[in-house]
C-alpha cells in the first residue's frame, strides 16, 4: 500500500484558518485507490472544512493536494470534478419536481446530452454499481436512501473516481445504512475510492478499510480499520473517554405535567402532518420522540409551544388548559424551549449575550421591571448563566454570533432552565455541538429531571434518546406509532418502527 501509484489522493500540510477558529492545521492524509477511507472526528473538528478544500469549495491557506500523484490546484468544484473528485453533501441538492434523469443531467448536459444517451449512461452506472436508480421516477416520490443514491449517481455521472460522502448516514435509518454500505463496497470493488466522513464509530469500522482521526483541526493518526476498536477510536477523537448518556434510576412521579389530547395539524398542502397525537409527561420524566426527520417532530414541538395556531386538540400544562394560549403565555406558565435550529429560533445572532438572555423571557424575572427592561439584573443573570453553564466567552457584551455552536447552545440551555420551568421541550439539544458541550448538556437535563422537571426530548441521535429517556415514542407520518422502554430496546427495533417496517410484523 505504500506504492505511490496506488494513491488516489494525497494531502500535505493543509491549513485553513477562519476568523476565530483554526479549522485545519497541518492536515496530512493519504487515501489509497479502491478503498473506503473514513475520516472521523467530533463535531467541529474540521472534517467538513477539509472535505470542502478537497472539493474546491474553499481554498486552503497552506499545503498541497495531489490527485493520482499529480499536484492539483482546486479553485472551484468544477476543478475538483475535472480531477475526478465528486462530493455528496449532507443536505441533498435535488429538485423535487424533476425526474431522476433530469436531476442527474442538470448542469452536466455537455457530457451525454439530455436524451437517450444520458439515459443509457444513467442505467449503465446504476446497474454497474448496484444503485437501483430508475431514471424516470420523480425525486419527490423517492425516500431518503434512494435520494442519496441519486446524489451518488450524479457524482459518478460526472466522471468522479473519488467520491466524498459528508455524514451520509445522519439522515438514514439503520436498514438504509446497511444498503448504503453495500453500495459503497460495490464502488470499491469497481476500483473507485470513497472518502467517508462520519462521527458514528461503529459504522465507520464496519465499512472502512482505513480510518483517519481528526482532532481540533489536525490529523491524529491513520489506522487500518481492522486493528482498532470503536472505544480506541473514540479515545483518539476526544483525547479522553467518550461520554455516554447513561440511564439513571427512575425519577418518574404520578403527577401529570403535560397532557396532549387529539393534537392535529393540517399543512397548507392539505397533508395531515400531525394526526390525533396523545401523550402525557409526568414530573421527573423524560419522554423521547424518535423518528426519521420530517415525520412531524418539528410540528409537534411547535404546536405544543403555541407557534402553530392552526393546530387542533388540547394541550394541558399541570392541569391548566393552554389550547388557545399564545406562545408567550405558555412560556410564562413554565415551558422552557430549546429549539431545533438555534440560529433561526433560539438566538438574536447580532445582539449581545445579555440581550439573548432576555429573549423568550421578556416578561419574566429578573429581566424586566414593569414595562421596562431591567438591564442590570438581566446582565447579572447572564453572567450567572455563563458561569454556571460554562459558556466560553470573554464577556456578556460580545455578539451571540461570535460564539461557537456548543457555547451558543449552552447559553440557550442555561436560559431555558432559568426561572424554574416545569416542562422543558428540547429539540435536538446536542446537534452540532462538540463532545464536551454535549456531555454538559446531558448532565443539565439529567439534573433537571432529578429535580422534577418534565422533558419532551426530540432527537435524531438514538444513543441520546436511549440514554436520557424514561420512555420513547416513535413518530411516523404524524402518528405516534410505537412506545418503547429504553432499557430493553435496540436501535434496530427503533429503526423498524421509524420506517413503519414494524407495523407489518
Amino acid at each position, binding site marked *: 500500500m505504500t506504492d505511490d501509484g496506488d494513491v488516489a489522493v494525497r494531502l500535505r500540510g493543509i491549513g485553513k484558518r477562519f476568523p476565530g477558529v483554526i479549522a485545519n492545521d497541518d492536515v496530512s492524509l493519504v487515501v489509497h485507490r479502491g478503498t473506503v477511507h473514513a475520516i472521523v472526528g467530533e463535531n467541529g473538528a474540521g472534517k467538513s472544512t477539509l472535505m470542502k478544500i478537497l472539493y474546491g469549495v474553499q481554498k486552503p491557506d497552506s499545503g498541497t493536494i495531489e490527485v493520482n500523484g499529480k499536484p492539483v490546484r482546486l479553485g472551484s468544484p468544477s476543478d475538483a470534478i475535472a480531477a475526478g473528485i465528486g462530493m455528496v453533501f449532507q443536505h441533498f441538492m435535488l429538485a423535487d419536481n424533476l425526474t431522476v434523469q433530469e436531476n442527474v443531467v442538470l448542469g452536466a448536459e455537455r457530457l451525454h446530452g439530455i436524451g437517450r444517451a444520458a439515459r443509457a449512461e444513467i442505467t449503465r452506472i446504476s446497474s454497474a454499481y448496484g444503485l437501483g436508480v430508475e431514471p424516470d421516477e420523480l425525486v419527490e416520490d423517492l425516500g431518503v436512501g434512494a435520494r442519496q443514491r441519486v446524489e451518488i449517481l450524479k457524482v459518478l455521472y460526472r466522471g468522479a473516481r473519488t467520491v466524498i460522502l459528508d455524514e451520509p448516514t445522519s439522515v438514514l435509518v439503520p436498514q438504509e445504512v446497511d444498503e448504503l454500505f453495500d453500495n459503497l463496497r460495490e464502488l470499491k470493488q469497481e476500483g473507485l475510492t470513497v472518502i467517508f466522513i462520519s462521527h458514528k464509530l461503529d459504522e465507520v469500522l464496519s465499512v472502512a478499510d482505513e480510518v483517519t482521526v481528526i482532532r481540533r483541526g489536525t490529523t491524529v493518526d491513520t489506522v487500518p480499520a481492522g486493528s482498532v476498536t470503536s472505544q480506541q477510536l473514540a479515545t483518539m477523537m476526544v483525547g479522553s473517554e467518550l461520554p455516554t448518556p447513561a440511564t439513571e434510576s427512575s425519577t418518574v412521579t404520578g403527577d401529570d405535567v403535560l397532557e396532549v389530547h387529539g393534537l392535529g395539524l393540517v399543512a397548507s398542502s392539505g397533508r395531515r402532518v400531525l394526526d390525533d397525537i396523545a401523550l402525557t409527561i409526568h414530573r421527573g420524566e423524560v419522554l423521547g420522540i424518535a423518528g426519521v426527520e420530517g415525520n412531524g417532530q418539528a410540528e409537534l414541538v411547535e404546536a405544543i409551544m403555541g407557534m402553530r395556531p392552526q393546530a387542533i386538540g388540547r394541550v394541558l400544562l399541570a392541569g391548566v388548559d393552554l389550547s388557545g394560549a399564545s406562545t408567550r403565555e405558555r412560556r410564562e406558565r413554565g415551558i422552557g424551549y430549546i429549539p431545533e435550529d438555534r440560529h433561526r429560533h433560539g438566538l438574536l445572532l447580532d445582539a449581545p449575550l445579555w440581550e439573548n438572555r*432576555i429573549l423568550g423571557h421578556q416578561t419574566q424575572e429578573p429581566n424586566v421591571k414593569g414595562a421596562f*427592561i431591567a438591564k442590570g439584573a438581566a446582565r447579572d443573570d447572564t453572567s450567572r448563566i455563563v458561569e454556571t453553564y460554562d459558556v466560553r466567552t470573554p464577556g456578556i457584551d460580545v455578539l451571540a454570533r461570535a460564539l461557537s455552536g456548543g457555547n451558543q447552545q449552552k447559553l440557550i440551555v442555561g436560559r431555558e432552565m432559568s426561572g424554574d420551568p416545569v416542562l422543558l421541550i428540547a429539540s435536538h439539544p446536542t446537534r452540532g455541538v462538540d463532545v464536551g458541550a454535549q456531555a454538559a448538556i446531558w448532565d443539565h437535563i439529567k439534573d433537571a429531571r432529578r429535580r422534577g422537571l418534565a422533558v419532551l426530548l426530540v432527537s435524531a441521535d438514538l444513543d441520546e434518546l436511549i440514554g436520557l429517556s424514561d420512555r420513547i415514542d416513535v413518530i411516523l407520518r404524524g402518528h405516534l406509532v410505537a412506545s418503547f422502554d429504553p432499557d430493553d430496546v435496540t436501535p434496530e427495533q427503533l429503526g423498524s418502527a421509524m420506517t413503519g417496517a414494524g407495523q407489518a410484523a
Partner: protein
Amino acid sequence: MTPRSTRVALMVGAPVLALVAAFLITSIVLTVAGDPAVDVWTQILSVPQSRNVANIINSATVYYLSGLAVAIGFRMNLFNIGVDGQYRLAAFVAAYVAGEAWVPSYLNTVLAIVAAVMVGAAWAGIAGLLRVTRGVSEVISTIMLNAISTSLVAFLLRQAAVDVQGSNNIGTKPIPRGSWIPGISVGSGPGTEVYGFIVIAALLGIGYSVLLNRTRFGFDLRATGHSEPAAVASGISVRRMVLVSMLLSGAVAGTVGLPILFGDAHSYGVTFQSGLGFAGIAIALLGRNHPVGIALGALLFAYLDEQANPLQILLNVSPYIVKITQGTIVLTVVIAYEVVRRYGVRLEQRQVARALEVRGSDSAAKAPA
C-alpha cells in the same frame, strides 16, 4: 483596543469615509459637467451666516422627525415609504383643526397636534392592517397610499379652502396667532429664529431612544427586526408588532409638517412643502436609525441644501448638484456600514477566539494532570 472601543471607532470612521467618497464622486460629476468644482466646494463649505444657521436648523428639525418616523419601521424591518403621504394628510388635518379654532389658544395647538398624530397613525395603520391580514407588502401599500393621499388632500383642500389674501393660492383658514408656536432666537436680526417645535422633536428623539432601548416593547420590536423566527419562538406576536410599529411610525410621521405649520406657514395651502418623507428614508439610513445619528444626518442634509442655494446666482451652477451629493452619501454610507459591520463581526470573532485561547491555555496549565 477593547471590542467596545473598536466598535465605536468603526461606527464613527465609516460615515466619515463615506462622506469623503461622496465628495469625490460629486467633484468628478462637476468636473465632467465643466463646472468649477473648487468654487462650488468653497461656497458649500463656507461658514454659514446666522440667518442661514436658523434655516439649517429649521429644515433639520423637519428632516429629523421624518427620519425618526422611518427609523421606527426600519428597526423592525418595515419599510414605511409612506411617511410622505402620512405627513401631508396629517398636516392638512392639523391646519384645518387649528384654523377652525374650536378651543382657545394653546389648547387649540394641542388639539391640532393630537389630530395630526392620529391621522398619521391611521393612514400608516391601513398599510399595517393590510400586511397582517392579507400579507400585502407595506412597501407597495404605502407607495400607493402616498398617491391616494395626494389626491385626497387636494380634494379636501378644495372643500375646506379659503382664498389666501393677495394671491391665487387657496389654503386652509389661517391659524389664529395665539395658537402659533413661538420661535427661539439663535442670533440677532430678522430670520434668525428657529421653530419652537424643535423642543418637541428633541423630546420625540429621547422618547424613541428610551422606548427602543429600555422597554419591553422596544426589545420585542428590535428582536422582531433582528430575526422574525426567533421572535415568534420567544413568544412575540409578530402581527401585533407589525401593526403597532406601523401606527407608531405613522404617528411620528404625522408631526413632520407641524414645525412648518405652527412656526411659519400657519395654514395648509397648495404650496405646502412636499417630499420630506423621502428625505427621511435617506436620513434614517444615514443615521443608522440611531436618534443622535439621525439628528446628524438631518443637519448634514439641511446644511447641504442651504449652502447650495446661492450656487445658481454666484457660480451659475444648479443647486441640484447637492442632490447628487446627498444621493451618493446615502449609497456610500450604506456600503461603508455594511463593510464595517462585516469587518466588525469578524474582528470580534477573532478577539473572542484569542481571549478563549489565552484562558484555555491558562486553565490547562493550572489543571491537575
